[in-house]
Structures are given as structure tokens and as C-alpha cells.
């Protein structure tokens, strides 16, 4: 009986952590409702307390849970502001691996200790990634960044996701069936992210394909110093966005950098049909000379041509303004389902029209000012409205194509980067070409 105690135990103890959070979040709601009964509506306070409790739990469960925290912090439009503020902290902090474990990982994966392999190797990590950490190394006068992954991350992903499911579904106010839809895709991406060999190949492919875009720099990757859990690349100079902004770059420089990001994503989506789907601030290094270094190709979303051509119809006013065509498209993309009653069809159509119209704004104009707080406040306000929409909340079935999850996440990420950067962008896009087909 005792024999197989271990793994379930750890899962139980991890579940325990989540249950505790669940109870606390429940308590916060209780506080909120009792306050409301007394006549004060403290929604912000409630969300802040929830965010704190959930974050504290997540930060105890490293690895994939942290990754999820990180991911959710991207979706500023989806999540209430208090959640995102708290989760943004998760983007930079995780406990470091001990040096002996780094040595052990090198020995078992590459057969040699890092000091033997490189001319120099930093004993301490210089940066943390969500499922690993980065060391600095030097070889033959070249500065290198070496990413080392935490052990056992891949093994814990699916159990972490199972644990997190009910919690996230309460947090986001979405049904568990919708969660299922979401998490299956997330699990696939996360598993891919633990595979550094795959990342190496993809990094090389994408950086080669994007080499024509001016102002972008990609590191070279070194297969001879890489393995399943070790990835070695050039060390790129530059600053994370928040730090970069402290130097008060000129509007011109910010526009220039923003434009590079926009063009980079536009090219990936419309030409490559695969996209660096992790546009969180830690993956870009901004420089005063008007260039950007791009690192971390762990999360790449590829999509089919069919999905692509259907989905981007949503960005074309001629389609969305035509009621019949728009409805057809929504059915095709599973936003509307055959089983929907006619009042549901009407209601959802109205919702999707409003949401897509708002989100596609930058695509409709030649130039768009991402510094516009008003625009982001409107996205946030709209998501609040629909989070409390009774008909939407009652809808059991998951809606929308699964492929769109990471694409949306990418655009949310890109929008929020550009917003922080305060850039004015020429949003000429290859999407316009679609109308001519």
C-alpha cells in the first residue's frame, strides 16, 4: 500500500495549496457581499484581495503554474486590472536553481561540466525564465546566454493544469467546458515549451525568415552546447521595456521601436503563418540605437491556411458590416453554434460585433496611436460588461476556434507592449490584401 505513496502525495499537497486559495477567495467574496449588503460596493478591493491570494499560491507552485500566471497577465483585456498588476510580478521572479544542479544537468545532458565546456560560466543565474534560468557564459571571446530548465517541469504540467482548472474558471467567470477547450491548447503549447531542442530549431527557422526586417536582432543558437534542457545562444544587449522607459526615450524612438514590433508580428502572422506567441516584456531587449533584440522562441503558434483566411475576414469592414456575411462567418468559426436559439444568435452576434470592432480598430486606420489610454479603457470596460453578461455566462459550450486562443494572446501582448511603449504606429497590414481575393 505504502509503495506508491509519493507522487499522489505531492499532488495532494499541491491541491491543498489551491484549495486553501479557493477558500480564501471564497472568504473574499463573502467580505465583498457583506460589504455590498451594507451598501458599499468595493469591487476593486475584492479583486485586489483575490489577486493577491491567488498570486501567493501560484508563486509557491513554480513551473507551469507560474507560466499560467504569466500568461494571464498578458491578457489585460480579459482580466480585471488588479489581477494583472499582481500577476505581472510573476514575469520576473522565480527561485534560482542551485549551481550543483546546473552542473548535474550539464553533465547528464552534455557529458561535461559547464566550466569545462565554456571558457567562463556564471555560477549564479543572471535572469529567471518561467521554467528555467539564464546563465552568462563565454567561449572563444563570444558572450553567450545559457538557458537551463528546472527538472521535472514537463512531468508536472498536466497535473498542474488539472489542479488549476476549477480555480481559473471561477476567477475568469467561465464555464469548465470552456476551460477544457482552452487548457487543451495551453497544455500542448506548454509541453512544446519544455522542449529546448524544438525551440532551437524554431528559433533558427524564424530568425532566418525574419532576417529581412530592419532593426531586429536575433541571437545565433549553438546546437553543440544545447540539449533537451539546455539552450545556448548569443548574449544580446539591451534593456527590458520598463527599464528602457526610465531613460525617457524620445517619441520618435518609441515610434520607431513600436513600428519594428508591429512589422515583426505582421510579417509572422501573414507571411509565415506562425507566430512568436509569447510577447511578454521579458522577451524583448530595447536599445537606444533604435533596434530590438528578440529572445525566447519557446512558444510558437502555427496555424492552418484555412483558419487564417477565415479568421482574418473578421478584420475586414466589408464583411463585418454585412449582417448576413458576418453571421455566416461566425458560424464558420464556431463563435455561433447550430444549437443556439435565435435570440442567442442575435445577442451573441451583437456582442462579437462590438468586441471585434473594438479590437480591430488599429487595423481599420492607416495610423494608430497606441498611447491612447481611452482605447484601452474601452477594451477593459467592455470586457467587464461581458464578464457579467448573463446570457454569455449561461452558455455552456465553448465558443470560437481553438487556434484563436494564442493568436488573441499574441495580439493582446503586442497591444499592451505598444501601449506601454506609447508608440504611434503605421498599421499598414497585409490583411488588406485579403479583400482582393
Amino acid at each position, binding site marked *: 500500500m505504502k509503495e506508491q505513496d509519493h507522487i499522489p502525495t505531492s499532488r495532494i499537497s499541491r491541491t491543498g495549496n489551491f484549495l486553501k486559495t479557493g477558500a480564501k477567495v471564497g472568504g473574499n467574496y463573502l467580505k465583498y457581499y457583506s460589504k455590498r449588503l451594507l451598501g458599499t460596493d468595493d469591487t476593486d478591493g475584492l479583486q485586489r484581495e483575490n489577486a493577491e491570494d491567488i498570486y501567493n499560491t501560484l508563486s509557491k507552485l513554480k513551473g507551469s503554474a507560474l507560466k499560467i500566471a504569466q500568461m494571464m497577465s498578458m491578457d489585460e483585456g480579459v482580466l480585471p486590472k488588479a489581477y494583472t498588476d499582481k500577476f505581472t510580478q510573476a514575469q520576473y521572479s522565480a527561485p534560482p536553481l542551485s549551481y550543483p544542479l546546473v*552542473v548535474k544537468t550539464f553533465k547528464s545532458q552534455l557529458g561535461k561540466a559547464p566550466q569545462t565546456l565554456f571558457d567562463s560560466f556564471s555560477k549564479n543565474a543572471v535572469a529567471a525564465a518561467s521554467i528555467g534560468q539564464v546563465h552568462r557564459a563565454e567561449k572563444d571571446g563570444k558572450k553567450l546566454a545559457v538557458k537551463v530548465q528546472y527538472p521535472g517541469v514537463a512531468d508536472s504540467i498536466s497535473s498542474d493544469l488539472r489542479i488549476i482548472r476549477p480555480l481559473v474558471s471561477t476567477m475568469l467567470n467561465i464555464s469548465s467546458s470552456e476551460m477544457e477547450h482552452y487548457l487543451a491548447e495551453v497544455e500542448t503549447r506548454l509541453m512544446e515549451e519544455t522542449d529546448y531542442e524544438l525551440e532551437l530549431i524554431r528559433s533558427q527557422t524564424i530568425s532566418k525568415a525574419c532576417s529581412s526586417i530592419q532593426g531586429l536582432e536575433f541571437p545565433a543558437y549553438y546546437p553543440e552546447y544545447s540539449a533537451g534542457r539546455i539552450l545556448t545562444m548569443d548574449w544580446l544587449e539591451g534593456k527590458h521595456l520598463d527599464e528602457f522607459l526610465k531613460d525617457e526615450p524620445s517619441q520618435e524612438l518609441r515610434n520607431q521601436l513600436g513600428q519594428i514590433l508591429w512589422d515583426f508580428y505582421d510579417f509572422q502572422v501573414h507571411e509565415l503563418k506562425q507566430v512568436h506567441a509569447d510577447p511578454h516584456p521579458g522577451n524583448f531587449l530595447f536599445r537606444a540605437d533604435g533596434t530590438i533584440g528578440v529572445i525566447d522562441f519557446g512558444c510558437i503558434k502555427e496555424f492552418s491556411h484555412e483558419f487564417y483566411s477565415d479568421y482574418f475576414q473578421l478584420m475586414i469592414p466589408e464583411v463585418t458590416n454585412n449582417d448576413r456575411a458576418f453571421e455566416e462567418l461566425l458560424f464558420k468559426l464556431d463563435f455561433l453554434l447550430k444549437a443556439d436559439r435565435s435570440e442567442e444568435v442575435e445577442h451573441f452576434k451583437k456582442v462579437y460585433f462590438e468586441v471585434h470592432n473594438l479590437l480591430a480598430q488599429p487595423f481599420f486606420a492607416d495610423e494608430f496611436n497606441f498611447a491612447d489610454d481611452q482605447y484601452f479603457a474601452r477594451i477593459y470596460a467592455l470586457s467587464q460588461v461581458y464578464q457579467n453578461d448573463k446570457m454569455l455566462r449561461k452558455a455552456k459550450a465553448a465558443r470560437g476556434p481553438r487556434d484563436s486562443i494564442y493568436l488573441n494572446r499574441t495580439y493582446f501582448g503586442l497591444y499592451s507592449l505598444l501601449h506601454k511603449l506609447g508608440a504611434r504606429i503605421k498599421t499598414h497590414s497585409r490583411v488588406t490584401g485579403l479583400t482582393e481575393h
Partner: protein
Amino acid sequence: MDSNTVSPDVSSKMDIKDKIIKAYKEHILIHGTEPPSIFAFCKELGITEDVFYEHFNTFEQVAASFWKELFHNVAEEVKAEEGYTAYEAKEKLLTFFYAFFEALKPHRSFALLSFKDSVSLLKRDSQHLSEMKKDFKLWAAELINEGIRKGEIAQRLRVTNAYDNILWLQFMFLLNFWRKDGSHDFERTDAAIEKSVRFGFDLMEKNALDSAFDFGKFLFQDR
């Protein structure tokens, strides 16, 4: 040369000892139990019983000798590692554990069988692990002293003396963990080592506990 006349004898003695350990392990691996008697075992191996008794009295001692040698090999191995002497005590302990479980990997089947009948490793350790325990605790005590000298570990009356025992218990916990670990390349064991050692040193270093004690003492004296 002098050494030439001595070494063949010594090395052949070592050979016999190793040969016995190897044959004993093989028997356990193939039959799943200890040999029925020392007599039968010696016959199978093609040696006389007195040769066996020159080295061991019981099968338990043979097993104990396996663990002890494994421990010493690993302790030597880590000492030779580049940069090891400059490591902090925590890093030395981590390095030891990683190396130990790496070295144990090829002997996993034997290790599992060796503990098959025992409900818990802790009960069994009086026999199979007794010799390794002695040596490990000496090694650990040295490590702890070094940690205290360098200020990594807090000196606490009485408690400090129990640290070598605590490290031994941690070692046994990890051995048990590894025994049940089904993860790829025993990555979960690596994580268990990492986390348990970090936790252990968090407790052993100067922390709130020491300040609380110090403060309490102050208040008491000041009454």
C-alpha cells in the same frame, strides 16, 4: 621494488572482496532473495567458506559493504570536482546528493530489491546501511562544522549536535523518494534534492528563530 611484492596480495584480496559483493548482488538480482546459505553461495562462486569469512560474517555485511563503498567512491568523486573546495556547505551537500543518485542509477534494481521486504528504509538501515550511516555522519559533521565556521549555519546549543542526524534522515528521505520516483531520468528526485536541501539550510542558517531566542533571553535577563 617494495610495493611490487605487497600489492599483488592486497589487490587480490580487494579483488576477492569485490568479487563476493558482485556475486551477491547478482544472486539477489536473479533470484530475488538472498542465497540460502553462505556455504551454497561460496560453492556457486567457487571459493571456500573461510575465504568468505576472511571478509564478511554475514550477507548483511556484504550488502553493507556495497553501500559503504558507493558512498566513499562518491565522496571522493565530488571532492575532485572543479571548484568543489570553494563551494559553500550547501552546495557541497547538493553536489554530493546529485552525484550519489547518479552513481546509484546503474544499481537501481539491486537497491530496490535490497529494500524490498522493508516497510521503510529507516528500519532497515541498522543492517544494510549501518556502515554507510557511520561514515556519512562523519562526513556530514565535518560539513556542518565548516558551515558554522563560515557563518552559513547558526550555532545553536545542543541542536547543532543533532544536525548530522538530521542530514542522515534527509538522505534516507531522498533514498525513499528515489525508490518510488517514476519520472523521466529521475528528475523529480533532482527537484526533491534541490528543495529539501534549500529548506534544510534555510532552517539551519541564522533566522527569525535565533533572533526570537536572543530577544527572549534579553527580556528574561532584564526582568
